[in-house]
C-alpha cells in the first residue's frame, strides 16, 4: 500500500513540475523522479515474480538503489548550478561533482577490496551508503551557501531543504543498520514511510510555489531571541 502511494507521489512530482512549468528548469530532479517511478514498478514486478528473500530481488534492489543514488547526486549538483548561476560556475560545479563522485567510488573500492570476496555487489552497496553521506554533506554546504549568498527563491530553498531532510534520514538509517542490524530491521518500515517525504515535498514545491516566490533565508535559520 505504501509502495503504491509512493509511486503515485513520485508520479505526482512530474505532473506538478509540468503544471508548475518547472520540468525543464529542474530537469535532472524530474529525471530522477521518473527513474524512481520506473525502478519502483520494476521492483514490484520482480518482487511479485521471485518473492522477497530471492537473490534476484536482493540484487535488483541494491543495484537499482545505487543507480538512483547517482541520479540523485547529479540532481543535487544541478541545485548547486542554480544557486551559483549568477557566478557562471556551472562548468566548475560539474567538474567538482564528477571529481567527488570518482573520489567516493575510489574510496569505496579501496575499503571493499580489503574486506570482501563478492567485490562488485559489496561495492555497489557501499557506494550507495557513502553517496548518501556525501550528498548530505554537500546539501549542508549548499544550504550554507544559500544563507551566505542570500538566495531568496522559495522553491529552490524548499527543494534543497527537503533534499537535506531526505539525505539525513537515509544516512541515519544506514548508520543505524551498521551499528545494530536488529534495530535496522525494526526501523525498515519507518524508512519506507519517511521515503515518501521527498516526493511529497517536491510535489508541494512545484505545485504550490511559483518560481518568482521569494523569502528571506536568514529568517529560516536564525532563532530570534
Amino acid at each position: 500500500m505504501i509502495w503504491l502511494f509512493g509511486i503515485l507521489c513520485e508520479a505526482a512530482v512530474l505532473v506538478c513540475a509540468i503544471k508548475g512549468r518547472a520540468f525543464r528548469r529542474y530537469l535532472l530532479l524530474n529525471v530522477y523522479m521518473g527513474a524512481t517511478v520506473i525502478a519502483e514498478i520494476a521492483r514490484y514486478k520482480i518482487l511479485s515474480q521471485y518473492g522477497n528473500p530471492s537473490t534476484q530481488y536482493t540484487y535488483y534492489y541494491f543495484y537499482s538503489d545505487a543507480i538512483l543514488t547517482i541520479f540523485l547526486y547529479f540532481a543535487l549538483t544541478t541545485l548547486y548550478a542554480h544557486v551559483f548561476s549568477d557566478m557562471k560556475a556551472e562548468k566548475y560545479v560539474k567538474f567538482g561533482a564528477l571529481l567527488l563522485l570518482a573520489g567516493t567510488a575510489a574510496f569505496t573500492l579501496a575499503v571493499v577490496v580489503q574486506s570482501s570476496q563478492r567485490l562488485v555487489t559489496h561495492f555497489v552497496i557501499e557506494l550507495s551508503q557513502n553517496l548518501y553521506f556525501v550528498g548530505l554533506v554537500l546539501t549542508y554546504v549548499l544550504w550554507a551557501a544559500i544563507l551566505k549568498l542570500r538566495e531568496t527563491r522559495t522553491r529552490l530553498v524548499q527543494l534543497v531543504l527537503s533534499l537535506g531532510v531526505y539525505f539525513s534520514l537515509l544516512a541515519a538509517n544506514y548508520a543505524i543498520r551498521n551499528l545494530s542490524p536488529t534495530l535496522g530491521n525494526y526501523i525498515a518500515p519507518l524508512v519506507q514511510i519517511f521515503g515518501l517525504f521527498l516526493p511529497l515535498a517536491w510535489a508541494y514545491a512545484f505545485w504550490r510555489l511559483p518560481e518568482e516566490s521569494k523569502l528571506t533565508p536568514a529568517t529560516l535559520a536564525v532563532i530570534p531571541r
Partner: protein
Amino acid sequence: MMAVIILVCSIVFLTQFFVSYCRSLIAASVKHPLSAEVQDVTGIKSSATGEDFARVVQLLQLCPDRPEDRSGIQAIGAYFGLLGFMRATVARIVPSLLAWTETERGLCTYFAAVTLERRIAFSRDMFAQQLE
C-alpha cells in the same frame, strides 16, 4: 566508530534541515491573508495562537485533501510537536525560548488555517465541476 559519527551528524543535520524546511513552509504561507469566512470558522483574526492548532487541524480533516498538500501539514504537525516538546523541557530552563516557541506555534496554526482555506477552495472547485 565511523557509523556513530555518521549517525550523530545525520541527526544534527536532520534537525536543522527539518526546522528550516518547516519555517520555509510557514514563511511562504504567512503572506497569504485569510478570507473572512476562514477567519470566522477558525476564530483567527490577525494572529493565531498555538492553542488553536488542534482545532484547526480537526477542521482540516473534514475537507478532502490532495497528496501534494499532505507533506506540508504533516511536516508542520511534526514541527508543532517538536515545539511543544521544547516548550515543556528546554524552554523551562531558557525562558527566552518560551516566547519564541509560542510565536512559532502560532505561526503553525496560521499555516494550518491557510491550508484549510486552500482545501475549502479545492472542494468548491470539485463541487462546481460536478455540477457542470
